[in-house]
């Protein structure tokens, strides 16, 4: 069973990563990041179940909490950027360079 879960986790992570790299819309990129985080959660939980202790489960909760906080801040930033620049494209926000 473990293998299948891990393969799923890897697939989800790859999809998320590709989404981050390919998509321009900030909201989609953001959701792809969430997808990667959840892929990790799945892997943690899988290993926790296989090894038979609770550390992986606990880490998964931590990740969820952090992700929730991140959603709050991240979405706020995206909304603010959209308000000021009329665009939610990550490529348009490239002022912080050189």
């Amino acid at each position: 069973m473990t293998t299948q879960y891990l393969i799923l986790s890897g697939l989800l992570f790859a999809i998320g990563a590709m989404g981050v790299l390919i998509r321009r819309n900030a909201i989609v990129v953001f959701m792809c990041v969430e997808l990667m985080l959840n892929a990790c959660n799945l892997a943690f939980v899988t290993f926790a179940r296989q090894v038979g202790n609770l550390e992986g489960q606990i880490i998964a909760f931590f990740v969820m909490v952090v992700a929730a906080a991140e959603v709050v801040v991240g979405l706020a930033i995206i909304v603010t950027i959209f308000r000021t620049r009329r665009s939610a494209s990550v490529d348009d926000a490239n002022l912080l360079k050189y």
Partner: protein
Amino acid sequence: MESPVEIVQHTAGGVIGLSWLMIVLPLLGAAILLVLGRKTNRWGHLLGVAMSLASFVVAVLGFFALIGLPDDQRRQAVHLYEFIPGMVDMGLLIDPLSISFALLITGVGSLIHIYSIGYMAHDPDRRRFFAYLNLFVAAMLLLVLSDNYVGLFIGWEGVGLASYLLIGFWQFKPSAAVAAKKAFIVNRVGDFGLLVGMFIIWTSFGTLAFGDLGAKVNGVQDGTTLAIGLLLLLGACGKSAQLPLQSWLLDAMEGPTPVSALIHAATMVTAGVYLVVRSGAFFFPEGSTAALAVAIVGAATLLAGAIIGCAKDDIKKGLAGSTMSQIGYMMLGAGLGPAGYAFAIGHLITHGFFKADMFLGAGSVMHGMNDEVNMRKYGGLRKYMPITFVTFIVGYLAIIGFPLLSGYFTKDGIIETAVHHQPVLGWLAVAGAGITGFYMSRMIFMTFFGEKRWDADAHPHESPAVMTVPLIILSIGSIFLGGYLILSNTLMKFLAPAVGRPTDLPVFHFASVPGLATLALVAVGAGFAWFRYGRAEVPVVAPRGSFVTTFARRDLYGDALNESLFMRPGQWLTRIAVFFDNRGIDGVVNGLAAGIGGTSGRLRRLQTGFARTYALSILIGAALLTGALLLVGNI
């Protein structure tokens, strides 16, 4: 031969103990005139003359105090103060040699001071002129009175400075400024020799004082003393305008004429002779290679100077060539050991009189001729300036060695001694005397005889008494001094405690072979000059002349040689060095800075501002790390 080495120095008291006043008085004069500046314009020249005369009085008193002492006490040391602790003290050495120089410097110097009152009367900067003259007298006295090489060197450079300031006195003329600079720099080449000579003296003998050197050197001659001798000779060549460092003297005539008389004829340029004679017992003993080198340099220069003198139309440059030549005679004499010293110093003293006489005479002529120096524009001046004419003629007769005048005794003494010791050089000196007869007669004929060739606006007139009285005094010296000094060996006996003397005192022959040959050649030279410039008309524009004339007019290509050997390569070297410094060394430094700056500028470009690029690089980085860990097999 009696050597001066064994004679002990005595600590001086009395008048001799006060001889530092000789130096301090004119120095004080210079300081007052320079510090108070324009406020002293009204009486500055009088102060200058007074200080110089006061110095002369001290010198005369010192002289009489000295001859009042027995022979073996005539080396008096005046200790002043500790200069460089453990190395050298400031002190004066009053002996017959130094007091002779002091008398010449302050005596002739005072006359020239007085003359300058008239000569510089119309110059707005006359006060500054007297300040420099006083500075010169002080420095020259320090040079000859010091009891060690360091003090001598301070005076040596001091007279160089005074000479620089006075040649460039009319510094607004670019030619004067260049001539002043050239004189200083060429002299510095000689100073280099003197400096390194002092290094070796100190290293080898542990002292720089004349009084201690005798015992330390102890008559030993080896490679060290030869090296010292040659280096000191280089110094002497610079100061005394001897070959190969002669080129500055002719240009130095840019200075006011009294300067040419005092510094570039009577006193400063003879400092080289003083140096050789003073060091003679240690480094130029009779028969040594160094002494031979001195004699050769002297003989070569006496001919070169005479040849240059033949072709000059500028009266001052003609006299300058003659000065070179006469100092060549003195050097020749100084290279012959104690037998020649008395004649060298004697010629130095009489030359100081007759050459100053002629230079001041030339100044008097220029004074009456709107500062014209070209002899082709003179002619027939004897009627208009009788006193100048007569005094000039006296100087002329003295320099060509007319029997019984000063120059006759001293120059003949050198020639005879030279023929006796170094026959080849001696006969060259005879030839030089013949050329002297020619160029000096040429000068007389072109200036005082023949037709008027003046410019329309020239109104020649005799100079005021303040200028002619010094001329008269100098010409009296030019007549009698030589006979007094040389006949019955007065000077040789007087100088013996300082420089030693030959065991057999020479007897002056009025009819020796070299003496008669000299007279004959001088007569031929004078006759030829009369034939060319007395009887024939002198063209106002100089004719082109032969190859030899051009050679002499160009100062035997001395300047051209210096220019192509030193100046141009030096300029190239300077340019290359500056380029190397800016582009090479600084280029490396700035290149390094630019390299670091450029690299960081390029690396900066990686921060594109695109979040997705960063994400990709994070991914690649993570993948690479994982891959690396897998490869190492530690996972």
